[in-house]
């Protein structure tokens, strides 16, 4: 096997690195936002698993918590929640 040495280039190369908000503040896209009723939330993790934006974190104490900076308001979390603990509310209300 030919030995390999990575020598970084002075030239501009099309390489990107992980970054939150790689497509900007996607929370601005929202027309509706999900609101969690913590008292109904059973901490089942369905919303966290299915959220395409990966912005939900279920906490044992606080229940499902949503990062509204990046939540796009798709409503999947409300749709899959078995306890009907999430409601979609129009932005601005």
């Amino acid at each position, binding site marked *: 096997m*030919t*030995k390999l040495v*990575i020598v970084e280039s002075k030239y501009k*190369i*099309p390489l990107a690195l992980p970054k939150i908000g790689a497509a900007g503040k996607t929370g601005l896209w929202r027309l509706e936002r999900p609101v969690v009723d913590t008292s109904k939330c059973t901490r089942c993790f369905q919303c966290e698993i299915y959220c395409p934006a990966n912005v939900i974190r279920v906490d044992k104490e606080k229940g499902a918590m949503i990062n509204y900076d990046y939540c796009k308001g798709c409503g999947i979390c409300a749709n899959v929640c078995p306890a009907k603990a999430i409601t979609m509310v129009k932005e601005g209300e």
Partner: protein
Amino acid sequence: MVLKVLTGNYAVAEAVKLARVDVVAAYPITPQTSIVEKLAEYIESGELEAKMIRVESEHSALAAVFGAAIAGARAFTATSSQGLLYMHEWVHWVSRARIPVVMAIVTRAIGTPWNIWPDHADFLDQRDTGWIMSFAMDNQEVLDLTIQAFKISEDPRVYLPVMIGLEGFILGHTSMPVDVPDPDKVAEWLGPRRQPYVIDGSKPWALGSLAWPEETEEMFMDIQKAMEESKKVIVEVDEEYGRLFGRKYGGLIACHRCSDAKYHIVSMGAWSGDIIESIELLRNEGYPVGLIRIRYVRPFPDKEIYGIVSNSRAVIVFDRAISYGSMGPLYMDLVAGLTKYTRKLPYMRNIIAGIGGVNITYQDFYKLIKETIDSLEKGVEPPVFTWYHRRG
């Protein structure tokens, strides 16, 4: 140092073996096929410890080579004509990714109609892609250029892929004596593979994501910069190789009696040998003519050629390809390049010949060059653009 009788194709395979390539993508196409056949023998016998990917198309051949290269392997493939055109999309992709890769092109005319004989159309069709492009005159040079390609491509001042051209059948299938350097010395000289990044799970790089216009242009401007810097590296590599292995060619161009010539011929490829023969005949008759042979067409040696032809009475450029609707590619590159250095050009003639594999001999060159010079000496300029065709 071992003298072997090798065809051009086997010289490529030998060089790939000396370079200790890790991954070879193989797809057959006339007149390249014996390269991958020989490499398969080397790999299956254990002479070359490499993986061979027997791909299902040339498009996949360069794609697989790209994959292997970005993942840290020294990777190689070879093709011709239709195969090269099929992988054309990947030719661009690889250079713009700035990943070192080496490829051999055994040149062959392009269809329609089917034609297996050599010209330069397939090779020169790649000249806009950002690959460094070299072209051989004989099988010794094929071997030397191929080995050097790895050194140049993997140099951080370059980080561009390199393709080596050799004419199908004339060099590809013709046996010539080739001095093969010592494998250990070559391996030591080439050293470890260097590349600017590696995509192998070690770091979460994303290669090739969408880039906005300004970012993209900056990346592409850097390709042009690397091309300019590579001239220096090519000359350095030629010199080092000369010191270590006893053969030096002169860098981007090779000169035959051009320093004291008043008339200059510019050519590329195997027929340069025939041109040299015709020059010897003409010299014996008193014609002050010399040959500038292009070894690297990208980066184009415009400055180097300017240095020789600035006081030339006339320059004849023989092209074995044509850009339909315009002129020969070498001619166009040369004339354009010269305008960077001067407003006054000597009389420059473009002769297209040998397209579709028509065999052009030293007698043809002798006739064409003599005619041109005789005419000019009488004060009559021959047509600037001529397509020299003959039958039989």
